């Protein structure tokens, strides 16, 4: 009987879902809300910032101030209902709770709708080009980047440029025209923008103009509307403008990149700069139990390193994926999204994997379920806790990917933004920090019972131990790689 097959499969759905349904939803609403107190529990903290700087060949400054020209209206993200604020006479006010829940649910629906208006395939060629280009050539070092972040920065750059300069950007992004790009950037932003108290994924962009640069207000308006970009104007090289820049970057990255932003300042010759940031933190769907974390050894290129190894047994929902030269597992986040860990085979470096078309295909597949080489196994997973930062200068890589005109004072065309001639892009810096750990909910009953229980343990098991350099990619709900990196030293 076919329905029995479905029954069997249902028996093996994720134990966390089964636990959730043990009582009617109404009763559970209270329970879920109570969990909010523990939302500080963070499994992955990630931040990225991109700074694109353009200069004017002749140079020259004036003015003394730093101020905002355009401030975008960010999308609404109603907070996840806070039961503590909804208590009335010792009981949860159900009516108020329902209203708060519906508001949250409605805003979440906006994000889901935006996500459904594009697919990872739309950016496949761009991702396949930039990931190896940015992460390659850093043998032995930790390195990471945010392709989504860079995509938004490049989209803004396309909006401020014209002619062949713009065409080269569109070509790299694999987008045919500006209308398509605006729609894509807008949806990408909406799908990834959320700070409802239960999770955080915040994107932000800004354009920084030198005070004596003439500018076209309609372009700044378009940047605010389509890219949620703020516009600032001030004296390049002045302490006030530098301070504003650092303050803005620190705020947008949740103070995660303070070391890298540190003494960042504008060169007096800069005429305009674009910044794009991501601030992201999410909890694992099934958290690692802190009491299982132990001292471990990581076999780095330069020798053995001590690390703290987190352990988890992934059973019913555990899938092991493999290719010619790698093995991989995925770990889901609460409320969607996942991290994929790719462990190169012995003797293969993560850098070599970046050049491997099969490994790249695995990173870019929207749905791992469709990956041919996969097997449902009990996975004894060991992941080192890591907190890696990297600072990249991407100018040369982008030139090699065909983005040449923007960097050349003779060919750069910034006419949609300004009538001033001779403006060109001088540098593009990209900073990221990614921290992955098990913690969060110490001393909370809700974490002691993580939910990956299996009804029928599979016959085969595998140890998947990330104790040598590996690749990872963090995906938002849209299954686009928000961050990709190589951990050589956890």
């Amino acid at each position: 009987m076919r329905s029995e097959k479905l029954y069997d499969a249902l028996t093996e759905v994720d134990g966390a879902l089964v636990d959730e349904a043990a009582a009617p939803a109404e009763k559970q609403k209270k329970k879920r809300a109570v969990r909010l107190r523990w939302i500080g529990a963070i499994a992955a903290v990630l931040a990225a910032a991109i700074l694109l700087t353009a200069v004017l060949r002749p140079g020259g400054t004036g003015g003394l101030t730093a101020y905002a020209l355009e401030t975008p209206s960010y999308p609404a993200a109603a907070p996840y209902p806070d039961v503590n604020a909804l208590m009335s006479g010792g009981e949860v006010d159900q009516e108020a709770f329902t209203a708060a829940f519906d508001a949250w649910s409605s805003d979440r629906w906006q994000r889901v709708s935006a996500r459904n208006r594009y697919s990872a395939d739309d950016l496949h060629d761009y991702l396949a080009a930039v990931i190896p280009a940015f992460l390659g050539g850093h043998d032995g070092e930790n390195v990471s980047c945010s392709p989504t972040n860079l995509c938004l920065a490049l989209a803004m750059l396309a909006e401020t440029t014209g002619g062949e300069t713009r065409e080269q950007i569109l070509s790299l992004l694999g987008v045919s025209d500006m209308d398509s790009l605006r729609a894509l950037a807008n949806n990408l932003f909406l799908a990834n923008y959320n700070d409802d108290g239960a999770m955080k994924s915040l994107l932000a962009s800004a354009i920084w103009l030198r005070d004596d640069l003439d500018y076209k207000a309609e372009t700044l308006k378009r940047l605010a509307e389509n890219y949620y970009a703020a516009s600032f104007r001030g004296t390049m090289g002045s302490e006030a403008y530098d301070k504003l820049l650092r303050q803005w970057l620190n705020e947008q990255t949740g103070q995660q990149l303070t070391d890298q932003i540190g003494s960042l300042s504008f060169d007096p010759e800069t005429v305009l700069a674009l910044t794009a940031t991501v601030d992201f933190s999410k909890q694992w769907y099934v958290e690692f139990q802190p009491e299982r974390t132990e001292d471990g050894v990581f076999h780095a290129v330069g020798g053995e390193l001590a690390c703290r190894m987190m352990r988890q047994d992934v059973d019913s929902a555990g899938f092991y994926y493999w290719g010619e030269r790698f093995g991989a597992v995925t770990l889901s986040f609460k409320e969607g999204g996942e991290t994929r860990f790719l462990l190169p085979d012995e003797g293969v470096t993560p850098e070599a994997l970046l050049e491997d078309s099969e490994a790249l295909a695995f990173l870019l597949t929207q749905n791992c379920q469709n990956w041919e080489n996969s097997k449902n196994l009990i996975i004894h997973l060991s992941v080192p806790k890591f907190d890696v930062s990297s600072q990249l200068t991407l100018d040369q890589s982008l030139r090699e990917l065909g983005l040449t005109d923007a960097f050349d004072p003779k060919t750069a065309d910034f006419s949609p933004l300004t009538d001033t001639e001779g403006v060109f892009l001088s540098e593009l810096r990209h900073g990221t920090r990614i921290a992955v750990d098990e913690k969060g909910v110490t001393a909370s009953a809700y974490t002691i019972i993580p939910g990956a229980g299996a009804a029928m343990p599979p016959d085969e098991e595998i140890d998947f131990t990330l104790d040598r350099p590996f690749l990872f990619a963090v995906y938002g709900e849209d299954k686009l790689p928000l961050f990709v990196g190589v951990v050589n030293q956890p």
Partner: protein
Amino acid sequence: MNDLEIIALFEQRKEEAVAAAARKYGGYCQTIAQNLLGIEDAEECVSDTWLAAWNRIPPARPASLRAFLGGITRTLSISRFRSLHAQKRGAGLTLMLSELEDCLPDPKGVEEAVETRALARLLSDWLRGLPREDRVLFLRRYWYGVTVKQLAGEAGCTENQMAQHMRKLRQALRGKLEQEGIAI
């Protein structure tokens, strides 16, 4: 006694493990088995649950002991149902399986079979994408075997409204399975 302590007893091969699990989750497993098979056969399934758990832990180390034990009860219930071949004795399960037929795409033209666990994974993903209320409703009906009447009572709607809603959920699942090209 908390779940980690119960699991530790199983791992140390101490028979108190069974008593502790039965004390804590006996009612839970009994409800599942009773929903699926009726009172008559439920008790035997539940007592078999503890033996099966004893045989599986170790090496299994369930992240959720409750879902692990409930899953065993479900598996034993369907086995018992199959062996009985007497559908009248498992009226609840018969009805539930017949409803689940609605979710299955037409097999014509679809050749590839999908392994149960791959299907379980797909079901988990589909469930995670549902609004929470629907996810809980679906699993209460088709994992726990709670009757439509009882679900209606819990949700404060009529049985007919609940039946309509469940049908929509089944159709949604059918759509998902068709979209994924799943043949069962």
